[in-house]
C-alpha cells in the first residue's frame, strides 16, 4: 500500500512539474515573454525590473528555477489591472466559484441520479430512451447557449430572475442550471450503468429470491451500492466545475474564477491568466491523486497491480 501511494505521489509530482514546465515553455518559446509579463505601455524602468526579476537574459533552466521558486512561495506576480497579488485575487474569487459549483452539483445530482435509476430499472423502455435523448442533449448543448436562452426566457420575457450578478439565491439558479446541465447528463449515464451492474449481482438475486418487493430491492439494496461510483465522480466533478465555469460565469457575470480568467484575457492581464491555468491544473492533478488513493484503499486489486 505504502509502495503504491509513494509511486502515485511520484506520478503526481511529475505531472505538476510538467504542468509548470508546459506553461513556462509556452510563454518563453512563442515570443518575447516581456510583452506578456510587462504591462502594455509600461515605462522602461518597469520592463528592466521584470527582466531582472525573472532573469529573462539568463539561460532557460535558470529562468525555470526562478519561476518555480516564486510559484512554490505562492508568488504568482501582480495583476496589471487590479494591482494586487494574483493569488490574493484568486482566493477572493474561490468561494464564489465553490458556491456555484455546489449549487450546480446539487442540481445535476437531483436530475442525474433519479433519471439514471429510472433508466436502469426500465432498461430498454420509454424512460431509458428518454434518458438517452436527454444525455445526448446535455452533451451537445453548449452551456453558453443554454445560459443565454435561460436569460431570454426567465429574465427578459418572464422577468422572474435577475439576468446577472450575485448576492441572492435567485442569482444562483440560472448559472447553476447552465453549468449543471452537462454534468447532469454525465451523472445520469454513470448512475444507469452502475445501477445495471449492481442489479445483475448475486446479492440482488438473493434479495429477490427472498421475495422482497421490487421497490425495496431497489431502494434498500441496489441504490446504496450503485451510488458509490456516482458520488466519487461527483467529487471529482465538483473540482472540475470550479475550473470550467468560464463561459457560464461570463454569461451571468458571476464573480468567480472563470470570470477572473475572462477579465484576465479581456484586460490583457497575463499574470492572472497564467495563475488560473496553473492553479486549475494543480487542483485537478491533486484530486486525481486523492481519488486513486481512495480507490486503492477500497479495492486491493488496484494497489497490487504493477
Amino acid at each position, binding site marked *: 500500500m505504502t509502495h503504491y501511494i509513494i509511486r502515485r505521489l511520484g506520478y503526481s509530482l511529475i505531472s505538476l512539474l510538467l504542468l509548470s514546465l508546459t506553461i513556462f515553455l509556452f510563454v518563453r518559446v512563442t515570443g518575447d515573454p516581456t510583452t506578456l509579463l510587462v504591462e502594455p505601455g509600461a515605462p522602461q524602468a518597469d520592463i528592466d525590473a521584470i527582466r531582472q526579476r525573472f532573469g529573462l537574459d539568463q539561460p532557460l533552466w535558470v529562468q525555470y528555477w526562478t519561476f518555480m521558486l516564486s510559484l512554490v512561495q505562492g508568488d504568482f506576480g501582480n495583476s496589471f489591472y487590479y494591482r494586487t497579488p494574483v493569488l490574493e485575487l484568486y482566493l477572493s474569487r474561490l468561494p464564489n466559484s465553490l458556491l456555484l459549483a455546489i449549487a450546480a452539483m446539487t442540481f445535476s445530482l437531483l436530475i442525474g441520479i433519479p433519471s439514471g435509476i429510472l433508466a436502469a430499472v426500465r432498461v430498454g423502455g420509454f424512460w431509458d430512451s428518454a434518458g438517452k435523448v436527454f444525455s445526448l442533449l446535455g452533451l451537445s448543448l453548449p452551456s453558453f447557449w443554454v445560459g443565454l*436562452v435561460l436569460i431570454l426566457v426567465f429574465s*427578459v420575457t418572464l422577468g422572474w430572475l435577475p439576468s446577472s450578478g450575485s448576492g441572492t439565491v435567485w442569482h444562483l439558479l440560472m448559472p447553476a442550471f447552465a453549468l449543471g446541465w452537462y454534468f447532469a447528463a454525465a451523472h445520469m449515464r454513470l448512475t444507469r450503468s452502475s445501477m445495471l451492474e449492481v442489479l445483475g449481482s448475486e446479492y440482488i438475486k438473493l434479495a429477490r429470491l427472498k421475495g422482497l418487493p421490487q421497490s425495496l430491492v431497489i431502494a434498500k439494496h441496489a441504490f446504496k451500492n450503485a451510488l458509490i461510483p456516482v458520488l466519487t465522480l461527483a467529487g471529482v466533478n465538483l473540482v472540475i466545475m470550479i475550473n470550467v465555469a468560464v*463561459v457560464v460565469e461570463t454569461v451571468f457575470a458571476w464573480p468567480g474564477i472563470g470570470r477572473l480568467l475572462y477579465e484576465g484575457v*479581456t484586460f490583457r492581464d497575463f499574470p492572472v491568466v497564467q495563475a488560473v491555468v496553473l492553479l*486549475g491544473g494543480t487542483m485537478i492533478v491533486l484530486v486525481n491523486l486523492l481519488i486513486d488513493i481512495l480507490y486503492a484503499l477500497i479495492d486491493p486489486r488496484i494497489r497490487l497491480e504493477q
Partner: protein
Amino acid sequence: MAIETPAIDLAPRFAFRLEGFPVLPTLILAGIGLLAVFAGSLAPHDPEIGSLAARFRPPAWQAGGSSEHLLGTDHLGRDVLSRLIFGARVSVVVGFTAVIVAGVIGTLLGIVSGYLGGWVDQVIMRITDTWLALPALTFAIFLTAVVGPSMWNIVIILGLVYWTRYARVIRGEVLSLKEREFVRLAVVAGCSKWTIMRRHILPNVLNSAIVLATLMLGVVIVTEAALSFLGVGVPPPKPAWGLMLADGKKGMMVGYWWLTVLPGACIMLMVLSANLLGDWLRVKLDPQLRQL
C-alpha cells in the same frame, strides 16, 4: 454446360451495415458543409458590411421585418442570414482542420508510445496525463493569450489541446495489436520498427482514429464557439457563430432574440449531428470503443 455461379446477394449485408444510419444528422452536416463551400454565392448580402440605417431589423415574419433581410440584422445592420452562412465556413474549416491536426499528432504519438514502450512511452504518457488534467477551455484561453487569436492560431491551439484524447485511446489499441500474430510475424520477417508501425499498426488503428475524430468534432466546434464568444477566438469582423452570440447578448435584454437564438441553434444543430453520427460510427466500426 455452363457453370452457374451462385449469385451473391450483397443487399442484405449492406442493409445490415447501414442499419440505424443517422440520415438526418448526415444531411445536416452535408448541408452545413455545402453552405461553407458556396457561402460566397449563397449569402444574399456581404456578411461584414452593413448599413447603420438598417440596425436591429427583426426577421421577415415579425412585424417590422422585410424580405430584404430574412433573418433580420444585427447591431451594425449586417444581414444575419449571410453572417450565419459565412459563419458555417468558420466552423467547418476550424472544426475539421483542428480535429485533423489533433488526430494526426495524437495518433502518431499514441502509436509510437504504445509500440516502442519504455522511456518513450513514459515521457509521452506523462505529458498526456498532465495535459488531460488541464481544463480544455482554460488551456485554450491561456494559449490564445500567449500567441494571440487568429483563425489558424485557433486551429493549432485546438490541435494542441485535444491530441491527448487520441493518444490515450490509440496507445491502448496498439498495446493489444502489438501482441497479435501478424505483428509478431512481421517482427520475425525482419521488418524494422518503423515499417511495422507504418504498414501494420497504423492501418489497424485508423478506424478508431476516425470514430474519435467524429466524436471530437462536436467538442472542438463548441470550444471554438466558446473561444469566439469570450472574444479570443476568430477575430471580428469575420462572422463566427460564437462571436455572433456574444454580440447578440447586448441586444438580448431589449428583446432582439434572433441575434442569440439563431447562431446558438446553428451551433447546436451541427454539434448534435456530429455526435449522432459519431455515436453510430462508434457502434458500427469499433465495438471496442463502446466503453469510451
